[in-house]
């Protein structure tokens, strides 16, 4: 299976331009016979949207931009980021990731953990998602995460419990921290790398992380997209800070082998976790 990663920089607030950029990357990936192409978080809109959020929102069922991407998904599976407004719940806007395949929406994940502290203000503008769900994509099961979702390990656990062999995290992670002299990139990139390695190994799943690059309002997005194998080995690392496009062959059979050798998935006990969490929530005191 060939996975294309578009470590790109969208135009802030211009869905019309960004869809063209997406289609160009898609065309390139199709030519190179990739099976799946992944774009970063909010790839259709840019990240620092603030009050632009409602203006760039799409309703997946009726959007003509979505229709173009659905058409493109007949040739290749797509994962990208969008601001989503749901027809049945108007006025709520989600930071969403869509997986399209064969002209259909296979799944839309709505970002659950919206960073809102320090430089981040996502919960001022977005509604929170409520679910982590693995879903079938042909011969594999995949799960979607958006940026900070990956840094909460409970998110990936839900995808493990749901049987995901591909954990796809799309990201618009800004770079912060410049005191590590040995690093080519920002210190903050290490958060995702550490989590990617650990989650891939202990979930026996591929972790595919696509981060964006470029600058918005003085903030540099860190790049450094990567793929870890189900054995926790780095099999692709894109450069920090600069735009890149890369196609990586991955072997879904490695998921089977890893799960056979280290049966974390077989031995997982979601009912125990469920019971423990249930008790925690029932007994939770006010703090």
């Amino acid at each position, binding site marked *: 299976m060939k996975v294309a990663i578009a470590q790109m920089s969208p135009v802030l607030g211009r869905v019309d331009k960004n869809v063209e950029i997406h289609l160009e990357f898609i065309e390139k990936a199709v030519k190179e016979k990739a099976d799946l192409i992944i774009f970063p978080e909010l790839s259709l809109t840019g990240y620092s949207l603030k009050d632009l959020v409602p203006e760039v929102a799409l309703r997946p069922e009726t959007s003509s931009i979505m229709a173009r991407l659905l058409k493109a998904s007949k040739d290749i599976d797509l994962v990208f980021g969008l601001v989503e407004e749901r027809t049945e719940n108007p006025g709520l806007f989600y930071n969403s990731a869509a997986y399209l395949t064969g002209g259909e929406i296979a799944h839309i994940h709505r970002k659950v953990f919206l960073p809102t502290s*320090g430089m981040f203000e996502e919960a001022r503008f977005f509604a929170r998602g409520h679910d982590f769900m693995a879903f079938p994509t042909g011969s594999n099961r995949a799960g979607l995460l958006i940026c900070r979702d990956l840094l909460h390990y409970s998110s990936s656990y839900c995808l493990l419990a749901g049987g995901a062999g591909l954990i796809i995290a799309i990201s618009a992670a800004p770079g*912060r921290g*410049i005191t590590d002299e040995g690093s080519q990139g920002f210190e903050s990139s290490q958060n995702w790398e550490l989590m990617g390695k650990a989650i891939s190994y202990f979930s026996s799943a591929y972790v595919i992380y696509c981060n964006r690059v470029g600058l918005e309002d*003085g903030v540099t997005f860190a790049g450094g997209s990567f793929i870890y194998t189900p054995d926790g080995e780095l099999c692709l690392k894109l450069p920090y800070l600069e735009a890149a496009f890369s196609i990586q062959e991955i072997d879904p059979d490695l998921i089977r082998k890893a799960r056979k050798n280290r049966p974390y998935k077989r031995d997982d006990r979601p009912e125990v976790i469920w019971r423990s969490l249930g008790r925690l929530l029932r007994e939770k005191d006010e703090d």
Partner: protein
Amino acid sequence: MKINCPLVTRVLTNFIREESQKAGFERNIIGLSGGLDSTVCAYLAVKAVGSPSVFGLILPYKDYDQEGVSLAEEVARILGIEVETIDISPQIDAYFSGHPTDNHVLKGNKMARERMSILYDYSARLKAMILGTSNKTELLIGYGTIHGDMACGINPMGDLYKTQVRELGQYLNVPEKILRRKPTAGLWPDQTDEDEIGLSYEELDRILFKLVDERLTADEVIRAGLEEKKVRRVAELIRKAEYKRKMPPVAKLSERTVGHDFLYPYDWGK
């Protein structure tokens, strides 16, 4: 778009008084042009802190706006505030004699920044807080000189559209001549804002109010019956002027960056 003038006056006079005190200033200083905004601002300032604590600077360039100068003097007389007139022609002419241009806007910007420079100098000399007079219309469409007339210590007027400033001016009994006068930035003789912008303030404010306060999209405003070309133009002006409304972006490098995630209130400890 009508405003509750007694309430607005109460809020803005409190604002001027409190913010000046918190910052440790004994007086307020205003550049008086004889136009509506600076006049209304001066009326508010006198209501807020009393005429002895308000100082006016009249900063003409040559005889570009003689009517403005005499109206500004009249305002100072009515309000009983101390005022000083400084002709900015020598320094402006000195600069442009070495770097000539026919571009009105370049000249106007330079004059606006010269006025700013004098206001800041007087602010330090008199320990006076500079009151800004940019209104909401100007801030939204970017009709002002960055680091020129847009520079100030505090801005009491920035959330009032031009037409609302006029309404407030009527309530405050600002001289009729000033209320009726064609707004001008004084960039060149006979210049008027409305000619330069290409829309009347009434049209402009109606469009802005729908886009900004009612949060309609440009398409929705057009569907509501406003002229498409004008609505698109105003929306584009708003977009292009964002840089004038913000501090310049700081390139983020560290974990805590001024302007990004080093976040303290303006009134910190005051």
